[in-house]
């Protein structure tokens, strides 16, 4: 979330913002981007896949807790659908105007919302089927062909944008996070969640090696996919320049993108288990980061407007350089920490009222 905030503050305040890595948008790297700007965008690639993956994990943990306390399956399904709908509403009312996009924009919250609604029912399928469907989708989505849906009819165009083909070409039918393959990332998270509930909190050290191995093998596969420059690359590697190696399609996420980002997520999680085992989560900085992590949706919704600092459709009064943007970013994080802390206190006082946020 902290990395994601950096991506958005640069979008709101810098003249050149890297982005749009897509076979439907920027198939080549912008040569005006300096390596530092390129990498400052590249590191934020971890955010969305981790966000969606952990939504799947947290869904499994939450469903298990609800079943344990005696909630019925229909009650749980309804709860998940309500949460999914709420995310769709937040996308329309809060997120789209922050990005100066039309209300119909299908962004990351919308794809999580839609995926939650689908998983509210699909979660009842056996775990091996969810795992197989997720992996097959993640490894094969580049073969999806939606040409049966014409692009010159509004509803059909929008459907294609929402299902698989992101794009910002026909106002207001904008989409950057189509349901496929993002739902499959959530499905993988769900599968991991079903395994995590069998492990006691004191046994998290058992997870370090599996997470690390998964992460390292994903990164090795990423290198292989980029080297062969065929399957799994929605944007081909143009040269042996390191920046071209790392210029990978995010919209939609190519297999290369997913191997890199989910591999990184696994390595982060391995590190996380070490931190938990050594009880470092109470140390100052980690405790502060933990505060953001305990209110992810609240942070997401508030950080956009905290950093935007202006009304929708209003251009920035000035552009900031990298140092100024970084100063704004750090200041914003401090403000958001206070907001998140206050929100968590409120949520503790009114758990029922704020249960969906």
């Amino acid at each position, binding site marked *: 979330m902290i990395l994601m905030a950096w991506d958005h503050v640069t979008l709101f305040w810098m003249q050149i913002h890297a982005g749009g890595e*897509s076979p439907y948008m920027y198939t080549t790297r*912008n040569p005006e981007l300096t390596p530092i700007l390129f990498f400052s965008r590249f590191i934020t690639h971890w955010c969305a896949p981790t966000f969606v993956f952990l939504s799947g994990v947290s869904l499994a943990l939450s469903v298990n807790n609800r079943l344990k306390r005696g909630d019925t399956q229909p009650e749980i399904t309804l709860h998940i659908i309500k949460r999914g709908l709420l995310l769709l509403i937040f996308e329309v009312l809060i997120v789209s105007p922050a990005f100066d996009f039309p209300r119909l924009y299908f962004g990351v919250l919308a794809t999580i919302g839609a995926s939650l609604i689908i998983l509210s029912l699909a979660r009842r399928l056996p775990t091996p089927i969810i795992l197989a469907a997720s992996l097959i989708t993640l490894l094969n989505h580049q073969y999806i062909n939606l040409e049966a849906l014409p692009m010159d009819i509004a509803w059909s165009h929008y459907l294609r944008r929402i299902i698989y083909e992101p794009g910002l070409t026909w106002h207001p039918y904008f989409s950057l996070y189509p349901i496929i393959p993002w739902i499959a990332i959530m499905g993988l998270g769900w599968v991991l969640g079903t395994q995590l509930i069998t492990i006691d909190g004191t046994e998290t050290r058992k997870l370090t090696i599996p997470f690390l191995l998964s992460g390292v093998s994903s990164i090795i596969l990423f290198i292989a996919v980029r080297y062969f420059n065929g399957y799994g690359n929605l944007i081909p590697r143009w040269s042996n320049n390191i920046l071209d190696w790392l210029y990978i399609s995010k919209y939609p996420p190519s297999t290369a993108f997913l191997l890199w980002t989910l591999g990184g997520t696994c390595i982060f999680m391995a590190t996380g288990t070490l931190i938990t085992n050594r009880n470092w989560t109470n140390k100052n900085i980690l405790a502060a980061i933990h505060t953001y992590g305990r209110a992810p949706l609240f942070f997401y919704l508030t950080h956009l407007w905290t950093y935007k600092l202006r009304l929708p459709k209003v251009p920035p009064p000035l552009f900031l350089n990298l140092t100024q943007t970084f100063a704004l970013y750090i200041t914003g994080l401090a403000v958001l920490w206070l907001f998140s802390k206050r929100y968590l206190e409120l949520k503790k006082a009114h758990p029922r009222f704020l249960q969906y946020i």
Partner: protein
Amino acid sequence: MKENYLPGLNTRQLIITLLIVAITTGSNLWTHRNDIPLGQARFSDYGFSIQYPRLYEYHSWGRPDGSTGPNEFGGAVQFKKYWEGTWNNVMIMWDLEPSPPDLEAKLDEFYVSMDNSGCHIDDKYELKTSEKDGYQMLQQTYTFTEETFSTGGTRFIATTGIWCQPYQSLHSNRLYTFTYITFLENTSTQQVNETFQHYLNKLNTQT
């Protein structure tokens, strides 16, 4: 062990699942082995083919001497895209040659034709010799100013490769002039050479 209310996954199920995933992905890879990658398009005509980003605009025109075309005898095609300050332009020109010509002289002719069309060459970098599909190719990177471009006086950097190879269907030789052009600002010679090579690798003249 904590209480688990959700369906689990044992080792046997995991292995079978991974096997199904591997078979499905492998079949897809095999079935689609000759597909053009998503977002790319293939141009195939006049005796050659090239893969290029689908969003690029395509233009073609006839031989520089004003005779008809484009056709197998000669012509040019261009794939270009201007987007938010970036400019990518790939141009392929071809012409018949009764016998393999002096490539350096042909490259000079190309520069003269550029100058005549309002593109003033500012700097030329080292002339290199390399190969395209086994045929000797002369390659040079240069900068030029385009006076007629809409903004006026815009500076570009380009790499041009020129080579001659037999053209079986007309029992003759074909001279190819392959050029990649982009804005000079913030572009290094290394970048322009790499992109030139990338597009050149996508050109198939053996069709």
